[in-house]
């Protein structure tokens, strides 16, 4: 290749990389809206990220103030429900989660609530509603966990289901309904028994939940 052409190409690649890097920096470092050109805005607005294949590691404080790692429940199929006290559908689904946690315990399932909310509000509500499954509570650290699941800019509630090896089987956005929840639980059991691959399970859940299979 012509040396001068090579230099031009290198310079173009460097400029492109620098532009991308700067864009990412701006996105992650709280750019001031007023100094961002309007035309560039849509490119900089963060989009939801990718849902992880495996349960990301995180630790949050429980109701007693003890730091609990999600690995404390290693070996169980987890149902991790993200919620907040200000969110009506989050409150609606808590009785269902209590029921499922009790009914599915013998199948090695564990419901864990992750409240992204002020600690005092969560403690008061948990006491009033007698939430009997483990609760982790986070404010900034709670949102950091939300980000680990690829859900920036999304609402609440959402619920992550894993198999007993910590692989994410599905993430359910919005209030969980009993029929949908039971279909997901049953599918996770099939994954645990190796009757379904993870990919087959994801397709099955997607097909059944959205197509209204009963």
């Amino acid at each position, binding site marked *: 290749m012509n040396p001068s052409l090579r230099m031009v190409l290198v310079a173009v690649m460097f400029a492109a990389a620098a532009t991308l890097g700067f864009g990412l920096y701006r996105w*992650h470092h*709280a*750019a001031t*809206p*007023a100094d*961002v050109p*309007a035309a560039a*805005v*849509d490119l*900089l*607005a*963060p*989009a*939801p990220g*990718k*849902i992880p294949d495996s349960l990301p590691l995180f630790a949050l404080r429980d109701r007693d103030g003890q730091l609990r790692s999600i690995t404390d429940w290693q070996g169980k199929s987890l149902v991790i429900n993200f919620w*907040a006290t*200000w*969110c*009506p*559908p*989050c*409150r*609606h*689904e808590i009785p269902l989660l209590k029921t499922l946690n009790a009914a599915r315990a013998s199948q090695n399932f564990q419901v864990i609530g992750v409240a*992204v*909310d*002020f600690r005092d509000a969560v403690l008061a509500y948990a006491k009033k509603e007698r939430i009997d499954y483990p609760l982790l509570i986070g*404010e*900034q650290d*709670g*949102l950091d966990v*939300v*980000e680990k699941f*690829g*859900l*920036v*800019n*999304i*609402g*609440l*509630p959402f619920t992550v289901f894993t198999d007993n090896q910590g692989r994410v089987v*599905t*993430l359910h*956005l*919005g*209030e969980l309904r009993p029929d949908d929840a039971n279909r997901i639980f049953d599918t996770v059991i099939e994954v645990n028994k190796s009757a379904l691959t993870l990919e087959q399970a994801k397709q099955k859940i*997607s*097909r059944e*939940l*959205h*197509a*209204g299979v009963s």
Partner: protein
Amino acid sequence: MFSIRAIWIPRILLIGFLTPFTAWSADLSTTPGPPTASHPHQGAGLKDTLGLKTKAANDEDFLPPDEAYRFSGELSRPGVLHLRWVIADGYYLYKHRMKVTSGSTQVQLGAFKLPHGDTKTDEYFGTQEVYHHQVEADVPFSRATSATREIEAHVTYQGCAEAGLCYPPITKILKLKLPLS
């Protein structure tokens, strides 16, 4: 022309999740002229974006917040800021969570005049007023001096989808050029 600046800032997003009145932040910078009343539905829903949606024809998806609630503002007449939310079917906004404040000491905002909403009864939150489809509100304002040339309003609102998803509060920063007084 009305331009939208939508920058979500993780730190502000955090506050939005935690408190009902500070929020996801975006900046609507405007110059005088007609606002865009609505935008065409441009993109994927949230499940689609996350790869959770199937191809089933009857699949329901949640809209991104700025598509669920299309906000705009304009100077409708001298001394009055006119705000409008076009709300997608199946979504609503809480009246008691709508708020507007001035971003500058040069402009003082008056009382936020919101119309009566629909009554929504929730077993946990009781009876509240909510808005469906569209809501408009006037906010009177006064300038500190005749030299004040811009109004900056911080408008916060929060709502949910009837299908069971609540968005953290959203704050838009609305900037409008003021005519000579």
